[in-house]
């Protein structure tokens, strides 16, 4: 018997443990649930050091990991192997990659593998929070163990049937072979016997030699949903249709924290297809996932519900955030950044070093709020009946959704089923399940299945925005041009404000994204965080605080290069300094993306390597025509290392064209290089969108944008001419690291630096917008 489940019911989701909250024990009801259900075995905790060359933070996540093959693998008599995908598919390819790892290790033939999407159940499947670029890095080893266990059980069953020692048989391509006697049995014929075998001890498992891999690291397998996507049968949240289902569109308070003062639904009643209108009560806005309240219009079709919603007359009580205004708030952030803040990292004496410097270069970098605008706006279907609830939706956190729906309805978690559809993009927005809770509450009220569809305007105006920030960096240089002092102040409303009222300092998971983990070799360093109050819901956005940090830090590198008349790439390498493991003794809580520092240190040799690789492959230093420019930036995030070169052309009217992008990524051991390439290609587009166009602004507490006309994103006619991707081959036992997010942060500064090289204009406030036209 082995411990094949590592649950930690006391572990909180959503980083609440960084801030004060009342309901700290909300997951304790889970204790023992899976054991009672009989899905898993109870046994001693396995010791991981013997199993892998590295450790990850996987077991610190809520419910940790589960490595029971009987939970993840089923073999039918006809040989079809079904593998469970327990993470959410939002375009990264994880629904294919993780099952592929299992198939590789169990010697299954991929053409005879089918994928089943797990519902939300973390006791059974382990943690399901699909965020933080964690899936491959946390699950490469557990998935290999699951596959190896299944292979071992099949081999044992075959050996028993033949009456030969298990050591003489071997699973090869969907059958077990006894080569001495040339006998072979297919997996399907062995399935029933193998199921009776006990699950082998994880300690005794023999994993495949990577040189024998058929699928891992090859990039030859397309995503499992590819055909469905191209013929229109792939099922996303909005595609779920239930008999008797009603369609709801909700009018939410336009100012965060606002409430309904008066409500008049009479005009909505005249809309064809109208059924009813309901006023909802407002929840405290600081709550991390609860809906905003407002009024819902129910109709026969989504189109009718939208029309009805737009006809409802609501007078809102805006509350304290009704004065939020972006220009004034920016001035507040800038003022805060010019004064000392909470000191988070301190090496040497930065104040004295700046005073004694030959030259001080100061840069203040502004990034406005951003909206995720995944192509699929939030949507969910719920069917609540009695004390049971079933949800269908594009949720990044299936387990969290189950927990939060149960809590909201006041029913046991065991009574809530969360079916995870494909996600039409997530980017962090769908880590919040407020839209699923809305559907559940309406379904309970109406006694019928309900689909809640957010319009694009709802998505832009009432979501969880990327924070707004000012990053101020002062660099002190000595006479030789060497940087001797570095003071970085970061001011931004924090995601923690959605968990705890009044939180004004950034949480470790924010300051650990490019602020305190700054890797440069500088004698005097100080990182500070002055306070900032939030006036809107702040959420996770693909690569999160790394966006403003990489923008600031990598812009400053180029500014120093300019001031000292050096090549920006050489300057970058000089600042990164000698190949070493960065020591950050003065940082109290070095979050490090939740990973142990021993396995995932800040390794400047790896950062240097991506810079050198991209400089080589991307032709750094090549001569370009007048009006063109090259820019470079490098950044470590999600424990991966990425460097990007952008070539731009800016014409005399200020029209910006991105001609070429080159990106090198070191993400350690990898599973599917073809999907890594696609993620990096996409990161260039997302990086360019936010750099060129991205700005959500507020007036009278309300978001001023609403759709793709006033919150534009990059379209094909503005897209880079070509994006080249170079993946650093991993060393032996290099732990896997993030892919989905790390491509985004270096893009914007590389672009900004290229624009400077082309025009001499230094952009310090994003988006670029019309700044080049002046």
């Amino acid at each position, binding site marked *: 018997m082995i411990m094949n489940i590592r649950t930690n019911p006391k572990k909180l989701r959503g980083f609440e443990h960084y801030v004060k909250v009342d309901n700290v024990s909300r997951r304790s009801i889970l204790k023992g649930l899976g054991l009672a259900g009989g899905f898993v075995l109870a046994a001693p905790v396995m010791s991981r050091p013997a199993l892998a060359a590295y450790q990850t933070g996987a077991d610190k996540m809520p419910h940790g990991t589960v490595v029971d093959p009987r939970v993840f693998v089923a073999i039918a008599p006809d040989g079809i192997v079904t593998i469970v995908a327990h993470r959410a598919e939002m375009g990264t390819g994880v629904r294919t990659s993780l099952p592929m790892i299992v198939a590789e290790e169990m010697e299954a033939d991929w053409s005879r593998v089918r994928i089943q999407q797990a519902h939300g159940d973390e006791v059974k499947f382990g943690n399901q929070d699909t965020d933080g670029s964690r899936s491959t890095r946390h699950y490469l080893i557990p998935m290999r163990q699951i596959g190896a266990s299944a292979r071992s059980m099949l081999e044992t069953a075959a050996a028993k049937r033949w009456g030969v020692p298990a050591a003489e048989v071997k699973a090869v391509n969907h059958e077990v072979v006894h080569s001495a006697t040339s006998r072979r049995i297919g997996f399907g014929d062995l399935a029933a016997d193998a199921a009776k075998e006990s699950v082998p001890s994880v300690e005794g498992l023999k994993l495949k030699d990577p040189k024998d891999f058929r699928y891992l690291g090859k990039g030859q397998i397309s995503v499992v949903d590819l*055909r469905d996507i191209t013929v229109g049968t792939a099922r996303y949240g909005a595609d779920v249709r239930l008999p008797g289902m009603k369609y709801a569109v909700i009018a939410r308070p336009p100012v965060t924290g606002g409430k309904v003062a008066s409500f008049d639904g009479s005009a909505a009643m005249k809309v064809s297809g109208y059924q009813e209108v309901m006023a909802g009560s407002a929840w405290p806005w600081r709550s991390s996932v609860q809906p905003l309240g407002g009024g819902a219009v129910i109709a026969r079709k989504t189109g009718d519900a939208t029309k009805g919603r737009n006809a409802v007359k609501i007078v809102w009580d805006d509350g304290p955030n009704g004065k939020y205004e972006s220009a004034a708030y920016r001035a507040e952030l800038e003022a805060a950044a010019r004064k000392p803040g909470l000191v988070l990292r301190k090496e040497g004496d930065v104040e004295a070093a700046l005073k004694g410097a030959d030259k001080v270069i100061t840069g203040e970098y502004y990034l406005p709020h951003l909206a995720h605008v*995944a192509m699929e706006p939030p949507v969910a279907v719920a069917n609540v009946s009695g004390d049971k609830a079933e949800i269908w939706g594009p949720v990044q956190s299936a387990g969290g959704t189950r927990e939060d729906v149960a809590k909201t309805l006041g029913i046991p978690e065991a009574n809530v089923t969360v079916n995870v559809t494909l996600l039409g993009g997530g980017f962090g927005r769908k880590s919040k399940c407020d839209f699923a809770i809305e559907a559940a509450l309406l379904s309970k009220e109406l006694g019928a299945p309900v689909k809640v569809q957010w319009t694009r305007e709802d998505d832009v105006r009432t979501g969880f925005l990327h924070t707004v920030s000012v990053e101020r960096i002062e660099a002190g240089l000595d006479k030789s041009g060497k940087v001797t002092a570095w003071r970085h102040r970061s001011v931004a409303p924090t995601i923690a404000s959605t968990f705890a009222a009044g939180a004004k300092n950034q949480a470790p998971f924010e300051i650990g994204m490019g602020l305190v983990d700054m890797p440069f070799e500088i004698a005097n360093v100080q990182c500070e965080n002055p306070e900032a109050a939030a006036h809107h819901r702040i959420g996770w956005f693909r690569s999160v605080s790394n966006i403003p940090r990489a923008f600031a830090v990598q812009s400053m590198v180029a500014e120093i290069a300019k001031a000292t008349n050096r090549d920006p790439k050489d300057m970058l390498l000089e600042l990164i300094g000698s190949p070493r493991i960065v020591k950050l003794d003065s940082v109290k809580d070095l979050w490090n993306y939740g990973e142990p520092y021993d396995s995932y240190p800040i390794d400047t040799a790896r950062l240097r390597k991506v810079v050198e690789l991209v400089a080589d492959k991307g032709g750094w230093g090549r001569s370009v025509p007048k009006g063109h420019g090259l820019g470079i930036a490098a950044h470590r995030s999600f424990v991966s290392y990425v460097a990007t070169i952008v070539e731009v052309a800016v014409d005399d009217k200020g029209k910006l064209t991105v001609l070429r992008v080159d990106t090198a990524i070191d993400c350690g051991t990898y599973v599917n290089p073809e999907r890594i390439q696609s993620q990096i290609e996409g990161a260039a587009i997302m990086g360019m969108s936010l750099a060129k166009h991205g700005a959500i602004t507020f007036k009278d507490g309300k978001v001023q944008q609403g759709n793709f006309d006033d919150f534009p994103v990059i379209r094909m006619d503005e897209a880079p001419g070509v994006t080249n991707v170079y993946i650093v081959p991993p060393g032996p036992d290099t732990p896997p690291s993030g892919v989905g997010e790390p491509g985004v942060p270096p893009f914007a500064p590389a672009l900004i630096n290229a624009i400077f090289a082309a025009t001499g204009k230094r952009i310090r406030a994003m988006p670029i917008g019309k700044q080049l036209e002046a």
Partner: protein
Amino acid sequence: MITLKINGQQKNWDGDPDLPLLWFLRDEAGLTGTKYGCGQALCGACTVIVDKQAVRACVTSVSDVVGREVTTIEGLHPTGDHAVQKAWRQLNVPQCGFCQAGQIMQAAALLNDNPKPNHDQIREAMAGNICRCGCYQRIENAVHLASTGV
């Protein structure tokens, strides 16, 4: 009562004649391959082909298409093997996939109109279709591949 022809089949509708075609397709006919992305013809996720033209179903009312042939992603090719669909699969174009039905319908209409579009023509014709995942490089290559034979 309105009668529509969708993917070669007659469909009747006795509701609001102003209902956007998108919601008729999705909520009434169950053809959910056509997606809602913006509701204002800004993103192209709802692109269908009416007669031979790519149109945005979110701003086209059901009454606008009476007497015309509506083709959705489900009806583009009987076995899902239109040259554009094949090219999409060959180059592993999609990431999340949500916008891809609209992209494919737009590309199919383009190639019907201009079988050998050049680089600029492809970029211009596809510029109304947003992909937030950023698959543009592959979309462009796939349209080119479909035009030269898959």
